[in-house]
């Protein structure tokens, strides 16, 4: 059904990689803007959701990098509102996931997104270590990554007071299994990465 499915565009374009990885074609978007109109964070984004798709559609030199460098892809909450209302049934959240992974892989993460990224990484670390999330561990790890040492110092005691923070992590028996899962996925990801064009190469005219 997707336009690009029938007429493949230049195979090295990011839009093509999006299609391969997510099955979503950015060319189905006809720029009505309904996604942006309903997006909870559109106002805070550097590119509105429909503009992210527009950049991918046009794909002139530099545009793909703009997308991967954008803050928008990191602000996306994957709340699925856009997808639910899109007249052309574009699964934008799926695309955003892919773009974030690429942005990270190509080292193009927006400076302002580092906190978000740091949180996600701290989150995953915590799971890799314990198999489950250890909130205190998470928060402190996050603080160390971001140096937001004072943020939420007012919240933590509240939690503690209400017996919501367990200072010791709940390790699970399958810790090792989970760690192995992480290792394998990381490896698979790196493997896939080799097939991804490096941005600088892709940008060469």
């Amino acid at each position: 059904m997707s336009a690009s499915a029938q007429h493949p565009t230049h195979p090295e374009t990011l839009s093509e990689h999006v299609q391969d990885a997510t099955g979503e074609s950015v060319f189905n978007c006809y720029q009505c803007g309904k996604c942006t109109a309903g997006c909870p964070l559109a106002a805070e984004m550097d590119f509105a959701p429909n503009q992210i798709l527009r950049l991918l559609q046009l794909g002139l030199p530099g545009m793909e990098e703009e997308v991967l460098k954008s803050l928008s892809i990191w602000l996306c909450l994957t709340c699925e509102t856009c997808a639910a209302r899109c007249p052309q049934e574009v699964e934008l959240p799926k695309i955003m996931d892919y773009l974030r992974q690429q942005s990270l892989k190509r080292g193009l993460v927006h400076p302002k997104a580092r906190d978000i990224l740091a949180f996600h990484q701290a989150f995953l670390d915590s799971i890799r270590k314990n198999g489950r999330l250890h909130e205190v561990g998470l928060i402190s790890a996050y603080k160390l990554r971001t140096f937001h040492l004072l943020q939420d110092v007012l919240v933590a005691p509240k939690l503690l007071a209400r017996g919501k923070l367990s200072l010791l992590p709940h390790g699970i028996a399958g810790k090792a299994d989970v760690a192995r899962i992480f290792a394998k996925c990381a490896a698979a990801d790196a493997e896939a990465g080799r097939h991804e064009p490096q941005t600088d190469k892709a940008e060469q005219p």
Partner: protein
Amino acid sequence: MKVGFFPGCSLEGSAREYNESLQAIAPVLGFELSEVPDWNCCGATAAHTLNHKLALALPARILALAEKAGLTELLVPCSACYTRLAATRDELIHDEALRRDISSIIELPVTGRTKVLNVLDVLAACASDGLKDKVRKPFAHKVACYYGCYLTRPEKLASCKRAEDPQEMDDILRLVGAEPVDWAFKVECCGAGLSVSRTGSVAELSGRIVADAADRGAEAIIVACPMCHTNLDLRRDAITEKRQTPYSIPVLYVSQAIGLALGLSPRSLGLHRHHVPVRLPERPAPSPEPALQPSGPKED
């Protein structure tokens, strides 16, 4: 009935009262929760943001363990976990190759045969199973039922019928004597994953939700998701600061509201753990029998 149970990480920490209240109402409502042995974290937003495979493998391990434990149905109270597990199950069922790949990663056989249920699915079952008669102290309050994102979206995974104006939670609460208000932010996003990393944005989004609920005269916001609860309850000070108006409306888990209606003690339901104190106006109980209106749009 016996139901598999995957609490998820937050129900062991910041959302422990959700866990407590579920454990408390379960026996009264006649279902038994059997926890998935040695379950792990579903990976949440972080995983599918950073590594697609991981985002499937972590939930897959949980599903695999559930299958091993012979659980046919699995209650996942946290909507964030629910959507991860449901999405993974959906992909596993429809993609043979992926299924093989993933089970080799998690070193466990996985088929996706265990059905994933969210809290509304289970409560709806109880509702049709005489919940109304078990009410001791009708929860006679105006409530704003807040569904958030993952109980209604994406549509193919959600059990709610009207994606833009779901009624399932409203119907259940009517049964226990509550009066759901018709409000505008039932399915708006609270800011979820950015709670810690972009508290400002979250305060903005959650603020709108709390404000609308209060403006419509709701006495409590009812949620079914720890993340929503954190943002609406724990982040209340940030919200107050953002909107320059104090809001005292408490945020209860649906299980807590029902628990109260069943006559269970506030403490057993973990109400004391909330950041915003749960003060509900006393009603001359038993309140006049609120007839169960058919769910559907009402002109406001």
